[in-house]
């Protein structure tokens, strides 16, 4: 079997073409093809904040950047965005935002519930800055509008892919705390609007009635050889 290649390949890549980036205004030459996160590390940064899952799921590495001679402000996740020549960037290691405290068991899924916990929703001016800021390409403003209308299902579905990075919240001129609103909407939807799985109740009753205890006891006491045989012959339950 030949050598399995992993990290050393990355080193080889680093000999490739270089690009010029500016980390918080300071110039660095880094290999093209790296993500912003890996480029910052290449330049000598060791993250404590601003780095989490490194795979686009946790929202820890929100980054804002501009290019020379371009007025536009871009947003992205440092672990998912490749460096480009002329990038001026900084990370956003923390987003100050307040979460409403609630007891989900006592909440009623009424149309005004989101506004009650987050009244600043009504300040939305429909500027769409939130949507433009979202690295997940979520229709954030539509979700806010749905929240104002009290359409909890729409909010839940539109925002399901939210990784709570806070870029919308930090950019919003109306100071809405979007990702907390969306979290509440999704939990209300999951608990009160989405129908419950009846088979779960039934299965739990079966387990509690001891239906599987005898068979399980047998499996616990079997020799490994007997277990293996049972395993090989268990078959696949096709539909």
């Amino acid at each position, binding site marked *: *079997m030949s050598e399995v290649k992993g990290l050393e390949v990355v080193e080889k890549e680093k000999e490739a073409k270089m690009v010029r980036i500016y980390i918080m205004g300071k110039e660095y030459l880094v290999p093209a093809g790296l993500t912003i996160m890996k480029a910052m590390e290449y330049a000598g940064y060791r993250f404590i904040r601003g780095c989490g899952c490194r795979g686009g799921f946790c929202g820890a590495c929100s980054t804002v950047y501009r290019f020379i001679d371009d007025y536009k402000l871009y947003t992205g996740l440092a672990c998912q965005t490749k460096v480009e020549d002329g990038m001026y960037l900084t990370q956003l290691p923390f987003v100050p935002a307040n979460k409403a405290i609630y007891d989900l068991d006592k909440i009623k899924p009424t149309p005004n519930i989101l506004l009650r916990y987050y009244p600043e929703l009504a300040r939305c001016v429909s500027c769409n800055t939130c949507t433009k800021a979202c690295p997940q390409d979520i229709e954030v403003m539509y979700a806010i509008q749905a929240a104002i209308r009290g359409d909890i299902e729409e909010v839940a579905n539109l925002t399901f892919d939210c990784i709570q990075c806070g870029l919308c919240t930090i950019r919003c001129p109306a100071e809405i705390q979007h990702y907390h609103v969306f979290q509440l909407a999704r939990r209300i939807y999951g608990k009160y609007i989405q129908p419950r799985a009846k088979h779960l109740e039934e299965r739990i009753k079966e387990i509690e009635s001891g239906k599987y205890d005898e068979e399980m006891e047998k*499996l616990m006491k079997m020799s490994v050889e007997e277990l293996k045989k049972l395993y090989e012959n268990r078959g696949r339950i096709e539909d």
Partner: protein
Amino acid sequence: MSEFELIRGYPKYMRESIELVEETRERRLKEEFRHLSLEEREELLKKYHPDHKEGTKRPLKIGPNKGMIAPHEVIDLLEAHPLIKPEQIDLSQVDYETDILIIGGGGAGMTAALWAVYSGVSPEDILIVTKLRLGDSNSVMSQGGVQAADRPPDSPTRHFLDVMGGGHFANDRQLARTLTMEAPYMMKWLEELGLMFDKDEEGNMIELWGGGTSCRRMHSCKDYTGMEIVRVLRDEIRNKGIKCVEFTSAVELITDDEGKVAGAVLLNMESEEYSIAKAKATILATGGFGRLHIQGFPTTNHYGATMDGVILAYHVGALLRDLDATQYHPTGAAYPEHIVGLLITEKVRGGGAQVVNKFGEQFVFPLEPRDVEAAAIIRECWDRNNGVETPTGMRGVWLDTPMIDLIRGEGAFKKMFPAIFRMFSRVGIDPTKDPVLVFPTLHYMNGGIVINERCETTVPGLFAAGETTGGVHGKNRLMGNSILDYLVFGRRAGINAAKYVKNVRIGKLTLDHVRRYERWLEEAGIETERRAPLILPDYRGKKVLMRRIDVL
């Protein structure tokens, strides 16, 4: 056109192989590759699984697990000096006095905290410390789903058999039984918390296949299952007012004069100031070791996956197990370079996509247990030379993602796999039209700290749950059982720690075990500058590190 110019994300020579995949697709839709017998599996693993590669492991020289075989990267951290010297630390000034200290803020830690509250512990008497943010963990990254045998014709006993077979029958049966019998309860709990499961219109769970399972029982929330669970748990932790200190790592456990674990020395990672947390019970929920890059493999794991909990537990003399078995996920991204090693969920295969070589032919049943599937892919790439080589010299095989829409109708892929679609769209590849290149990637620590079904370690006062523990999965975990593991055993850790703190008295605090560990190292003749736990990996550029001077 230059050799490096990309056509819809791929260079021309890779496109030629993709054309072969397209040609065979229609025929393959009706083909099912033969499953391997137990014997054939073992043979494949022995020859091609990285665990069996020579020169990658050594026996441990010190402590209660002396002689245990594990990867060099693991032994290096176990045969290392503790980070602190007892004389540096003033134990008389206690900064946090708490009933339950939970080290780690991922799925296991958060579940334990919530169930401790349900068991009557006041939220003010619980302290979660995490070296990153609350929720930053491998838990948040799990995509494909969670197993629970929660309707006919499936049963917990069938689930149990799958778990045992997947784990090569090396599992702690009591733990495997607990895992599978309590699975439906945990689904129910998540439903109560308002989790948005994938369900049909009547509310029935949509359940898919997983590797090594004999029935469809994979519950999911698109391919953001882990993220959906973690953000709900985190929201609930905050609703309950459970105290959490972020960017603070545990660098050493503290015991009392009877040897019971009684808290930890914490480090504020930003100010580098230490503090003392005194606790009646301590729960380790620190996750696995992907960031050790065993054998140089890239990893799916989050930034903090450095097995700190295993190291801390061993310092106080807790037993470990099964650390010789490492899980490589069969389908990590192999192209393009900057996403190498990132996870492509097994749910893609569970949904019907096949794994094919450069000629567009299947070479393994797509849903063998993970170790078997990974070994088959390595054989195809490096022994049979039927892999596709990337521009940077990696090899991979195709995961035929366009099959999903062919089987389940147009739009199905985007609906089931928004995260994977997004990840590849960002690099210019459309996985609904083209296959994606995959190769095994370091994924999971199968072994870890020994626990019983009450989540007690072998040291009093110390509980553990989740990936940091061993025994539940034996030598190889099946898909969908890691979320289940942290739910079932996180709950049990919380409940049992809550019971334990009612009657325990903590004596005088000491760090004698650190002195003992130093003695063990000395007696074994281990001379090293290594220190552990690692806390975070160091990815700074080599050039920078070579020229670095420490003056500030």
